[in-house]
């Protein structure tokens, strides 16, 4: 005798999960998106190891060489190998995205969960804070803070990005928490003597894991873009190499005017690919987790 009438809506997460996996591997958007990101990530992670270079900014060859078998992406005006820079840059860019997105996600979660769960005055106050940060044109603030402290490292850059890019995510998480808070299992956990932070961590958060993951993906992409903008304006880290810094360098040293497209195109393309792929993957995930979107 089966005790499992598969009624719609009551279908629990396990089924959703099993289904999710089923749809995930069949979702073209998700697979292409994540696949592309993964390829780039691996290039960034393994590239430097494989190449065995430690200083991507060294002058290693004749300047301005077009792509060749020896220098896959050619060389810069200084004779740096663009491909070496590229793989290192990927690393930095991923780090900036992960860190910035991560910090933003953490803040968003703290604010969103607290506001959504506690409600009342706390909610109002946090909401106010969120709105203030939301309305302030953060890039302008970033520019200024950057100019003030001067950014020397990717970590600091990511910190600033994280500190300014969380509001929309906090809002979204707050809304979700708010609706989950009303669910009875939260009250039941209270009746089992769980404290508020533990309820949030153990009951509410696991329920929105897919949502949180999607939020993180978007924050990650946003971070990558902001970081590259900052790098480009010359407010990036002064050491090392990132895709944004490569773009900045290429522009400042007139790569396009001098016809060194191989210096200018790959980093921009990679940023576009990373961010675009993340967004596409996000839509894919959305379709996987949201049956309504699946049929279309």
């Amino acid at each position, binding site marked *: 005798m089966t*005790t499992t009438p598969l009624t719609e809506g009551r279908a629990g997460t*396990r089924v959703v999960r099993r289904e999710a996996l089923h749809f995930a591997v069949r979702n073209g958007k998700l697979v292409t998106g994540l696949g592309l990101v993964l390829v780039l990530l691996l290039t960034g992670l393994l590239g430097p190891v494989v190449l065995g270079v430690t200083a991507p900014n060294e002058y290693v060859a004749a300047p301005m060489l077009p792509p060749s078998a020896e220098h896959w992406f050619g060389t810069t005006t200084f004779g740096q190998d663009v491909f070496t820079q590229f793989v290192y840059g990927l690393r930095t860019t991923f780090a900036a995205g992960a860190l910035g997105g991560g910090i933003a996600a953490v803040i968003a979660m703290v604010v969103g969960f607290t506001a959504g769960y506690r409600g009342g005055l706390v909610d109002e106050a946090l909401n106010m804070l969120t709105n203030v940060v939301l309305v302030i044109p953060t890039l302008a603030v970033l520019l200024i803070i950057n100019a003030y402290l001067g950014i020397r490292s990717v970590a600091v850059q990511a910190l600033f990005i994280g500190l300014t890019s969380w509001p929309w995510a906090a809002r979204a998480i707050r809304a979700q928490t708010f609706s989950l808070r009303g*669910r009875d299992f939260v*009250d*039941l956990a209270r009746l089992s*003597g769980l404290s508020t932070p533990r309820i949030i961590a153990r009951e509410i958060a*696991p*329920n929105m894991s897919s949502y949180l993951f999607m939020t993180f993906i978007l924050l990650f992409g946003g971070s990558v873009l902001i970081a590259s903008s900052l790098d480009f304006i010359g407010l990036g880290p002064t050491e090392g190499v990132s895709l944004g810094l490569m773009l900045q360098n290429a522009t400042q040293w007139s790569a396009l005017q001098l016809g060194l497209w191989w210096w200018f195109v790959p980093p921009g393309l990679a940023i576009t690919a990373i961010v675009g792929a993340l967004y596409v993957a996000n839509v894919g995930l959305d379709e996987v987790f949201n049956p309504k979107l699946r049929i279309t």
Partner: protein
Amino acid sequence: MLRLDNVTKVFRTGTFGGRTVTAVGGVSFDVRPGEVVSLIGESGSGKSTIGRMILGLTPVTSGFITMDGAPVRPGKDYYRAVQGVFQDPFSCYNPVFKADRVFALVKEGYFPRVPAAEWERRVEAAVRDVRLNPGEVLGKYPHQLSGGQLQRMLIARALLLDLKLLVADEITSMLDASTRIDVLNLLAELKTCGLGVLYVTHDLSLGTYLAERTVVLRGGAVVEMGPTDLVFGDPRHPYTRALLAAVPRLNAPWEDPAPVTSCLCHESGPAGGDGRAAAGRAAAGRMAEAGPGHLVACARLADCPPA
């Protein structure tokens, strides 16, 4: 055992609590051990709010709730004795986890030192107590269980504690007619073991099935309360009468109660929502006694003849 004394709940809504909603206004009643009190009223009449206040999930604005003479202080000690089961069994389980996590949480909160094997034994006993087969329900995800099973597991969960009072908030409204009866029968069994139950419902027929006493709420205030057979058998308040008349019965046609035009208590229009007015009325017109323990919120009870 449980006493509510002139309990009022005012919700603040709007920016920084700009507006207020009186969900419950001046409600007093009590629940004795081994007794089922059913709380009846339309949607929005404040039933759940009362339940939540008793469970300490919502703070009381004014008035007192006492348990065995001591004021309610939500915390582990209190929840050892007072537990709740809610309307929607499906939403009581975190869909991400297996259903028996509700037991695990209880262990974590109250019996962290009990050895696992001993605990397992207790859980199985409790599950059997609610007439479920442990092998059939343990280790499954909520969606793999039926509503009745889930609801019964929640009751089993409450039974793991030294329970004195169970707040059952519409625990059957999401269930099929047949399962519903099973759960109600279970409650009836439990009360014979001395458990006090506050049975919240808007379904009048279910209210009468179990309860010794019935409290009828309207707009956050008590309209009529007393022994169930008196309240249902001889409803004195026009609102109670109208409510009863609207219940569809299998074997009887819908009746329209004679409009009681002379009655001050009677008002047409939507009943829910205006708790403030109701509270005001209840406070002004003290409850009049229509029979032994049968109280009616009516200033001129004498003018209202028994039906």
